[in-house]
């Protein structure tokens, strides 16, 4: 899973327009091996943006019927703060049941999993994967991937905000000196215990710095973060 997604994150860094982002959503969908991937964002003034792989007729129909007002995924995610399997949402209303049937008929899939994201200044977004699968298989699939999906969702949202706001966005890649030190020590082959010792911090603190550096570098794991930091010239070893 990680090795499949790493190249996506590298390409995501170079995305400059919403069109390119849309393309990348398609690429990522293929790598995740699901039928659909959706990124949907609403800012504080109600402006919406979506990058998705659903068929265009379903998207038109959804917009024309204003299904967002009754879609349990949208309503449920807006209130939630943790990822949610569609099965855990409330589909008992008549309108919701009919909506679900129509969605499945339109190729959305019978299973879904959505990650809510709260961005700056009241911005809200969600990243959804959907698929046709049995409950058992879907549970295995999402269990294995939910943590990575959370990270992907944040990176995609960050990129979308960056495109929307243009150049005034503060680059996340500003590592603090201690974060840079932590990445450098691991890059030099120190174990976590040795690195913590050399930097006079606890191993726990080191782990927090590494995790934070990894996120700021848009990387999936520590090895990926080291590669990023080196290619950006943030560390020299």
């Amino acid at each position: 899973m990680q090795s499949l997604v790493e190249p996506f994150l590298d390409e995501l860094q170079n995305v400059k327009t919403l069109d390119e982002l849309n393309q990348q959503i398609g690429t990522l969908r293929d790598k995740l091996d699901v039928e659909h991937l959706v990124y949907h964002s609403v800012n504080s003034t109600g402006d919406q943006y979506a990058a998705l792989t659903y068929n265009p007729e379903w998207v038109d129909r959804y917009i024309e019927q204003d299904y967002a007002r009754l879609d349990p995924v949208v309503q449920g995610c807006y209130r939630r703060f943790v990822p949610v399997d569609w099965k855990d949402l409330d589909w008992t209303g008549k309108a919701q049941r009919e909506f679900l049937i129509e969605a499945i008929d339109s190729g959305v899939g019978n299973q879904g999993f959505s990650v809510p994201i709260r961005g700056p200044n009241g911005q809200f977004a969600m990243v959804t994967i959907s698929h046709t699968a049995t409950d058992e298989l879907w549970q295995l699939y999402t269990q294995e991937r939910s943590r990575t999906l959370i990270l992907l969702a944040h990176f995609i949202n960050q990129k979308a905000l960056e495109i929307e706001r243009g150049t005034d966005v503060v680059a996340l890649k500003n590592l603090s000196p201690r974060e840079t030190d932590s990445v450098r020590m691991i890059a030099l082959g120190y174990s976590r215990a040795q690195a913590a010792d050399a930097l006079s911090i606890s191993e726990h603190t080191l782990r927090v710095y590494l995790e934070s550096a990894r996120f700021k570098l848009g990387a999936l794991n520590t090895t990926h973060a080291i590669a990023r930091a080196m290619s950006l010239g943030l560390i020299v070893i």
Partner: protein
Amino acid sequence: MLRYIPARDLSRFPKLAQSMFLDRTAQFADRLGWPVQVGPDGGERDEYDALDPVYVIWERRDGGHGGSMRFLPTTGRTMVDDHFSDLVQGAKIKSPYIWECTRFCLAPDASAGVAPALMLGGLELGLRQGLSHAIGVFDARMIRVYRRLGWPAAPMGRRGEGTNAIMAGMWDFDPAHRAALLRRARVSAELSEHWWRRSMDALDLTEAV
């Protein structure tokens, strides 16, 4: 019972919310003497309450507040970034896997089980969404309390001496802590699961949307 409530949903629990902010006044303004803001309704609130945090709250049988904590993802603004950066050597900690925990508060007459139950709630909140760590800034004396409660905080930095000392620390979200916290809170794994589900299901009620 434990409740997990995002700030935008607090208005659906008026008694619980109101008594929580009043108890925060009692703890942070009256007892600890911190320079916090107390509103016209007598409740203590700060700017971070406006950033849609998630509250882990112990609700008493009468619907009032027994104790609480506040969680914010470090991807947004945090207290440690804004005010206590020196405690983490200037690092601006940012990760969707690391959340900040602040305003650990107990009602003045809270029973002994409330504090461990809150720690259990904090652990559940992290484990159920795949977080790696919580960070927090606290009165340095709390380090012993957290250890006694069954989920020690690892110190990251310290400012000041004696009773005025404050500390930044972190907790790791490791399922291995669950057994000890369940035991100290005298709660079964099933009940803890039930409380979590109940809170999540409550978020689906669409009447307020």
